[in-house]
């Protein structure tokens, strides 16, 4: 009977991604938050909705030669090359610290083949602290000539089904924006059993140094992220949220509480903060506090009232 008073006491920021309950809708985006610990001086890690870790593969990967990053207008390109310690060292070296935080850990996984994804999901099954698996399908499928899994609905579905088959925790499929119609892929992974989708991963881009007449990235092309891509991300979240019934997690250029809530209005149940962590390592705290302040100020019963509440007439 007194939701307004309750709201001013403590805003209700809880959301759920499938069976996974989050204390608030703000997660970190994979690859932009290390393994969490790097940020312990800057962010209240225990206050996050979830921590999404850097993409993990079966075997360790050294990554691409430098230069790996370059700044662009209101954005950046990265071609890290999926450098990571491999799943075994992740479990032994990184998970204990993360599990002790008490917030769900979302493990972002990547592979060269459907089989690799399956094995990764298997290795991660039952590890305490893991709240969900986020499947990065923007990686090239080496068996299909290097076409990214995420650009082919069938391959995307196959990966989803394989991971789903070995996971007890919710499986979130992270969609690539480099497609003609992202709703087609979203529906394909939904049908294959995905519990949620997260989007967008980076747009493929390139930068050139006129002086040396060379690409600015050793890898030639890289992934564009940051405020520059926010309009594209917002559009895709809006489209996908109307195309699927599963929860959508919005990603792309989110740096403030307003950004986050715009994604929720477009249909996102939760959001991920990516590149903004580099500029402001306290960004996630500010986003959470800003959402709480808004929910209180607007006398909303819950932040969930924002989800898909865009008024399109």
């Amino acid at each position, binding site marked *: 009977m007194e939701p307004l008073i309750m709201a001013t006491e403590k805003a209700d920021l809880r959301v759920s991604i499938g069976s996974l309950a989050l204390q608030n809708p703000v997660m970190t985006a994979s*690859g932009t938050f*290390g393994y969490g610990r790097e940020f312990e*001086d*800057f962010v209240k890690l225990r206050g996050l909705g979830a921590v999404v870790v850097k993409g993990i593969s079966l075997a360790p990967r050294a990554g691409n030669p430098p230069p790996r990053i370059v700044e662009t207008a209101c954005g950046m390109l990265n071609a890290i090359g999926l450098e990571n310690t491999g799943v075994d060292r992740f479990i032994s070296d990184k998970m204990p610290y993360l599990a002790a935080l008490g917030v769900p850990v979302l493990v972002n996984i990547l592979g060269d083949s459907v089989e690799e994804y399956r094995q990764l999901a298997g290795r991660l099954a039952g590890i305490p602290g893991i709240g969900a698996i986020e499947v990065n399908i923007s990686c090239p499928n080496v068996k299909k000539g290097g076409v990214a899994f995420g650009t082919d609905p069938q391959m995307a579905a196959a990966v989803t089904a394989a991971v789903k088959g070995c996971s007890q925790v919710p499986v979130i499929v992270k969609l690539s924006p480099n497609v003609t119609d992202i709703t087609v892929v979203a529906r394909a992974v939904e049908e294959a059993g995905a519990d949620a989708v997260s989007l967008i991963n980076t747009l493929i881009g390139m930068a050139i140094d006129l002086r040396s007449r060379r690409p600015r990235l050793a890898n030639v092309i890289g992934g564009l992220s*940051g405020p520059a891509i926010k309009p594209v991300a917002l559009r895709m979240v809006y489209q996908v949220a109307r195309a699927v019934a599963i929860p959508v997690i919005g990603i792309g250029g989110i740096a403030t509480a307003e950004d986050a809530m715009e994604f929720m209005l477009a249909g996102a149940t939760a959001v991920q903060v990516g*590149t903004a962590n580099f500029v402001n390592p306290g960004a996630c705290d500010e986003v959470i506090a800003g959402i709480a302040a808004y929910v209180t100020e607007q006398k909303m019963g819950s932040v969930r009232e924002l989800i898909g509440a865009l008024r399109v007439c």
Partner: protein
Amino acid sequence: MSQFQQKVELICFEALTEDIVRLTFNAPKIAAMARPGQFVMVQTSPGKDPLLRRPFSIHQVIRDGHLQILFKVLGKGTELLAQVRVGEQLSLLGPLGNGFTPGSPETACLVGGGMGIAPLLFLATRFLSKSSAAEVSPKMPMVILGARNRAELEPLVDDFRKVGVDVLAATDDGSFGHHGLVTDVLTKSNLPPGFGIYCCGPHPMMAAIARLCQQESRACQVSVETVMACGMGACLGCAVPLKAGGYAHVCSDGPIFEAEKLLWSL
């Protein structure tokens, strides 16, 4: 807490030349934790362009929590930084990176080129300081500094002399000190075997000194530069190749490396 994100006030602006600027911030928390060779990430604009912070070595930490950076105007970020006025606030992140290990060896030769001189002033004062005796050697370091010309070098050499360190100078145009490279000066100085090198400067200079030290089996710590997005080990963007294969990350494994561990191109 050993690292901080702080809004700090600019309390002194010095234009050493037309395009070399020294900024002094009131940054007590970061200054209190800072060690020579560490760096800060500076937000050059409150807006979104340029988006990323810029890394700068900690040039000096002075009494009362004042922290200095010294930089050359190269592009957008440094141009904006050169326009900040005393009294304005800027966001600093730091102290970041490992810093020099000044104890090993205790007898030291500091070699700096261009803006690579920046971290060496802090290092030199630590070598001299008696207050932090546990960590550093009280022995007088030898210092060799190089730059393009007198205008760029003399004010910096003066700073070293002010703290009581003598400097061997070299300029590209011969307008101040030796006419030529710091490597020439180093070679000619017949450095005794016990002296270790602490070096920061352009890549070719550091590569040459690394080679020299390898030949003489001399300990050599270098401060490495790369592009950086986060400065704190999160983005993995700041990779440098290692001699043993694979990569190190300049912001978290460095920026100070033993020269022999790195794979030197050129």
